């Protein structure tokens, strides 16, 4: 921290289940939701009287003096903190889902699959891209277009974030006898794994 003051912290982040080394340039900075496990004070009051500006010697002394049992105890306590609970949608508990990775695997392996983008019309009117290999169909008019689908090949539906519309579409198609499932996380989960998209024309 040349020319600065602050803290160096080893922090456990339950959200990610990870340990992160980070700096904080004053007392007010921290990782949101993080639990500090090991704290190295880099304010000059921590070392200047004894070490002057020799931060290397101070940090070496700090490392020699760490009470690792205490650090271990903090870590043991910290990892008991659960990550944020995942989305629970009991109304769709009987509708099977598929991950974007599995969809990508189906496409690359050449497996025949009908991928239907059912992002709502109010969203699709301003959407810029669409999943490569998908066709968009208006979920409000599902009764009109589902007749064009084949019951011999699986169907994957998805919406923007994978909460409602894609699930509802998959559920309706299943009731009509199709082998349908929804892609968990929707369009943005696909983009998050860098699945290919093309211009939505």
């Amino acid at each position, binding site marked *: 921290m040349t*020319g600065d*003051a602050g803290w160096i912290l080893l922090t456990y982040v339950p959200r990610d289940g990870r340990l992160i080394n980070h700096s904080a340039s*004053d007392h007010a900075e921290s990782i949101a939701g993080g639990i500090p496990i090991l704290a190295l004070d880099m*304010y*000059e*009051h921590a070392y*200047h*009287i004894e070490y*002057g500006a020799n931060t290397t010697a101070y940090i070496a002394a700090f490392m020699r003096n760490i009470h690792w049992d205490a650090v271990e105890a903090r870590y043991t306590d910290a990892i008991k903190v659960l990550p944020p609970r995942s989305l629970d949608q009991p109304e769709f508990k009987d509708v099977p889902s598929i991950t974007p990775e599995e969809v990508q695997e189906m496409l690359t392996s050449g497996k025949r699959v009908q991928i239907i983008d059912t992002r709502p019309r109010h969203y699709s009117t301003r959407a810029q891209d669409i999943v490569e290999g998908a066709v968009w169909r208006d979920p409000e008019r599902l009764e009109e277009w589902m007749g064009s689908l084949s019951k011999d090949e699986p169907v994957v539906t998805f919406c923007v974030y994978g909460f409602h519309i894609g699930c509802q579409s998959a559920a309706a198609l299943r009731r009509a006898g199709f082998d349908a499932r929804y892609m968990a996380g929707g369009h943005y989960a696909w983009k998050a794994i860098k699945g290919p998209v093309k211009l939505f024309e």
Partner: protein
Amino acid sequence: MTVPAALTGDHRMLPLPFVAGSLNGISERMITSHHENNYGGAVRNLNRTEQELAQITRDPPPLLVAALRERELTFRKSKALHEAYFANLGGDGLRSGAIETVLGEAYGSSSRWEEHFRATGSGLGGGSGWVMLWFELDTGSLRTAWSGHHTQTLATGFPLLVMDMYEHSYQMDFGAAVPRYLDAFFANVQWDEVNARFERAQRLRAAL
């Protein structure tokens, strides 16, 4: 008119403008460490940062450029403020001249201003930052300002008196006893330098 080339990365340290062991109540060891390590570190790091910035093309990620620019500002301002700080020390601490008069006009009395300045310094005790008396070029006002790190300065300010409140300025001699540092700082202020800066600042404002 010509201006110097940008990002040369060849800034040099200015020497201390007084004999290191001559200050009243501030040790040679501490002022030397301050000058060599903290000020010197800023100059060396500014040079390194400028050399890195000089290499920039369209290719590096914007976040890398942003990080270098942030470091550049930190080290450039640390260098400038440290130079102003050392140059306004080495005196006898006796306020006189035009600055004494205008501080009285602005604050009721120059002693009242000193209370403000000291209180602002106390507020930074145990942390880091600067307290500065500025001449504000757009309004012609005197301003006593706080900063929590090197980069917070008044946008149109010309520095008249600069007090370092980073703990490297006082911990070695005084530990956490901030009031003793404030006493030592005021006992060593070079008010002739402050008056000379005030004179330059007024000329600068008149020329704007």
